[in-house]
């Protein structure tokens, strides 16, 4: 039976059209995946359904939900529906919970607000729902606060809140995007289990085709505010009738053309890490007690040859960012050593040595001073070498090399999109011709098609400048596409080291096996 029937949904915000003629059906107990790139209108569709569009939005069309048109409901009626009939889960578990309330109070609140239970009774139901989402009372009592839980556990609390009243429809907006792959697999399992058990319908919004392929029965592909293709997941993924779907597929499995690195052989390594140890002092457990230490990097050793691409894979908290900062000479080591071209790397090292390594960070928004013009930003590394007289031409050339125009130098960074900003970050890293570029999750925040372009650019630049890359990522498929060799890091240690293809197809270490198994994949025979 159809639970939700959306027809001709149009949304505009202050005259700008956001959604045009969106329509789909969602049956009881079914999962509909809504996929598309950022800005395609996926989240706006969900917000329109639950009446939470930003101010100034105009909505037309119909959305029949269990006999009522959601778009015609008053705010008071919608308040009764939200939480009771329609549950919601958002992307960011770190901010979706109130840090000052215990998890028990927050889950019970949903019940109390809707008058479904009294205070005492609500706590009992909250305990039961938390146990259902994998937070049993003996280990996760109701009195815990959100900061005492990990990201995945917090997302479980959010799910418990969303399903506390056994809603008919669950809207999950990128529920696993902020989580590690192993946690993502567990949360997706939990969600599909809940849907099957309680005959809920789920609208799963995601940018990740692989997540949809493993979770949703039906899929709708969105582009620029329209649904361009919809149908049973397997059929849509196999036939890819629409051109945009084909492009999305091609981009998500994209592997740039690249020549394998020249055999290192006798060449001395460019970067050599030997027994690196980095500890953080934790707060004292009691007054006058010694500070306990956290070993974020625990005896890491590896070497990277000139012109080589090396991947470093691990989940959040494994120490890869700490190691990155040490390699960049930003933080000191407590043990071991890092050598770049034979010279020791440490804070305050010689500027000449610093010119040999540059970096591209993950966040295209936080990587640039918003008050500087792009030409000044790109020229910043010239601080190491002294600014040459022709620096403007060099900046223009670097911008051209990454696919922008030299005239872009006079603009400010907010005038560029995320993908363009990553290109500018690459131009900044290239400007002083380093030997090694550390790419710290450099493509993780980008949409698949933009990511494919940036990967292409990186491959081309590596070829023309004989660059070495240290490619740090949590995403196995990207690492595999652009590196020759992969290191897998867990809890501060390198647990596996080998050729990218071998490590990711036939992992030897238990942790790598777990990672590979948890990575969502589109079934081989669909492609």
């Amino acid at each position, binding site marked *: 039976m159809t639970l939700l029937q959306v027809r001709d949904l149009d949304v505009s915000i202050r005259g700008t059209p956001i959604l045009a003629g969106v329509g789909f059906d969602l049956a009881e107990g079914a999962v509909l995946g809504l996929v598309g790139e950022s800005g395609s209108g996926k989240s706006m569709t969900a917000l329109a359904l639950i009446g939470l569009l930003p101010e100034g939005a105009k909505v037309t069309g119909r959305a029949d939900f269990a006999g009522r048109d959601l778009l015609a409901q008053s705010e008071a009626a919608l308040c009764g529906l939200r939480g009771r009939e329609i549950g919601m889960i958002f992307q960011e578990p770190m901010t979706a919970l109130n840090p000052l309330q215990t998890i028990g109070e927050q889950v019970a609140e949903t019940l109390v607000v809707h008058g479904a239970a009294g205070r005492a009774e609500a706590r009992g139901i909250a305990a039961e729902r938390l146990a259902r989402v994998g937070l049993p009372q003996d280990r996760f009592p109701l009195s815990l606060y959100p900061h005492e839980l990990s990201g995945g556990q917090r997302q479980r609390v959010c799910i418990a809140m969303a399903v506390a009243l056994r809603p008919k429809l669950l809207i999950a907006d990128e529920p696993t995007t902020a989580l590690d792959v192993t946690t993502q697999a567990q949360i997706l399992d939990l969600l599909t289990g809940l849907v099957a058990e309680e005959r809920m319908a789920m609208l799963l919004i995601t940018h990740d085709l692989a997540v949809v392929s493993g979770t949703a029965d039906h899929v709708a592909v969105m582009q620029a505010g329209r649904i361009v293709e919809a149908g049973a997941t397997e059929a849509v993924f196999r036939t890819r009738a629409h051109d945009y779907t084909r492009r999305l597929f091609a981009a998500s499995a994209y592997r740039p053309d690249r020549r394998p690195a020249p055999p290192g052989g006798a060449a001395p390594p460019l970067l050599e890490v030997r027994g690196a140890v980095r500890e953080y002092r934790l707060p004292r457990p009691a007054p006058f007690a010694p500070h306990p230490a956290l070993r974020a990097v625990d005896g890491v050793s590896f070497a990277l040859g000139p012109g080589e691409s090396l991947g470093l894979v691990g989940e959040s908290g494994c120490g890869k960012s700490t190691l990155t900062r040490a390699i960049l000479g930003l933080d000191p080591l407590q043990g071991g050593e890092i050598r770049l071209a034979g010279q020791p790397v440490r804070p305050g090292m010689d500027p000449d040595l*610093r010119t040999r390594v540059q970096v591209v*960070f993950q966040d295209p928004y936080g*990587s640039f001073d918003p*008050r500087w013009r792009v030409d000044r930003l790109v020229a910043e*590394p010239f601080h190491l070498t002294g600014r040459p007289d022709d620096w403007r031409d060099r900046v223009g050339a670097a911008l051209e090399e990454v696919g922008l125009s030299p005239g872009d130098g006079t603009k400010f960074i907010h005038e560029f999109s995320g993908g363009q900003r990553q290109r500018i970050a690459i131009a900044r890293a290239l400007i002083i011709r380093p030997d090694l570029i550390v790419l710290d999750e450099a493509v993780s925040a980008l949409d698949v098609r933009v990511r494919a372009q940036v990967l292409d650019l990186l491959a081309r630049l590596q070829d023309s400048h004989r660059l070495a890359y240290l490619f740090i990522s949590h995403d196995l498929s990207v690492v595999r596409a652009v590196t020759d060799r992969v290191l897998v890091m867990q809890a501060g240690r390198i647990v596996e080291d080998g050729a990218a293809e071998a490590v990711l197809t036939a992992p030897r270490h238990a942790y790598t096996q777990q990672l590979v198994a948890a990575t969502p994949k589109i079934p081989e025979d669909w492609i």
Partner: protein
Amino acid sequence: MRIGFGLGVALSLAAVAAALLSFLWTPADPTALAIAQRLQPPSPAHWAGTDHFGRDIASMLMVGARTSLAVALLAVGIGMAVGVPLGLLAAARRGGLIDEAVMRMNDLIFAFPSLVIAILITAVFGPSAVNAILAIGIFNIPVFARVTRGGALSLWTLDYIRAARVAGKGAARISLEHILPNIANLLIVQGTIQFSLGILAEAGLSYVGLGAQPPTPSWGRMLAEAQTMVTLAPHVAIFPGLAIVATVLGLNLLGDGLRDALDPRLRRAR
């Protein structure tokens, strides 16, 4: 918002213009006594009336603006000149001994009620405008140090600061090139707030007789002298009161408007 900014600019400019004009011209001599003319209501000859000595209130207000603005401006200058570098230093050495020392010194200054210390300073060194500036300025230091450190700390964790470090820049250069411009809007807003608080503080010190000394006119002392005859001749108290309110309000509106105008992100959104 635009109306508020316009009003802020107008009121602040009016106060500054009155102060500057008073160097060249005032409607009457602000110190000339004319007992026969005392407590006259506003008239074409005396726009704001006269006080109990028959002095022209409009002229006194103009010269008083000079005192108020100069004291507050210099006090903010002292606070910024000392507080901002301390805050930048504390943020650059966050968690270290210098940070700890700077912030605990700030706590020490904060721990004493400002007016009590101002009274102590003026009592020891004698009441004068210069001592009022010093007293108010010292209390601005921890305010600016804290605002600077707070703003700078959140910036130090950003990737563009890391990129600057990878480009070999040291803490001092990063503080000047990246941190300071990006917290300038915070400082401007705080600066206008402290400026208006400085005007209030100067009026307060003058009111208790510890600010600028007679015969230099001062808004605070005009209020103090007017209070005994507020039922008899309300205009003597109303005009200095209005001058203080208008200037403080104008400066606050100006600060808000400047913050919006200086931020390139907000500028684009408009």
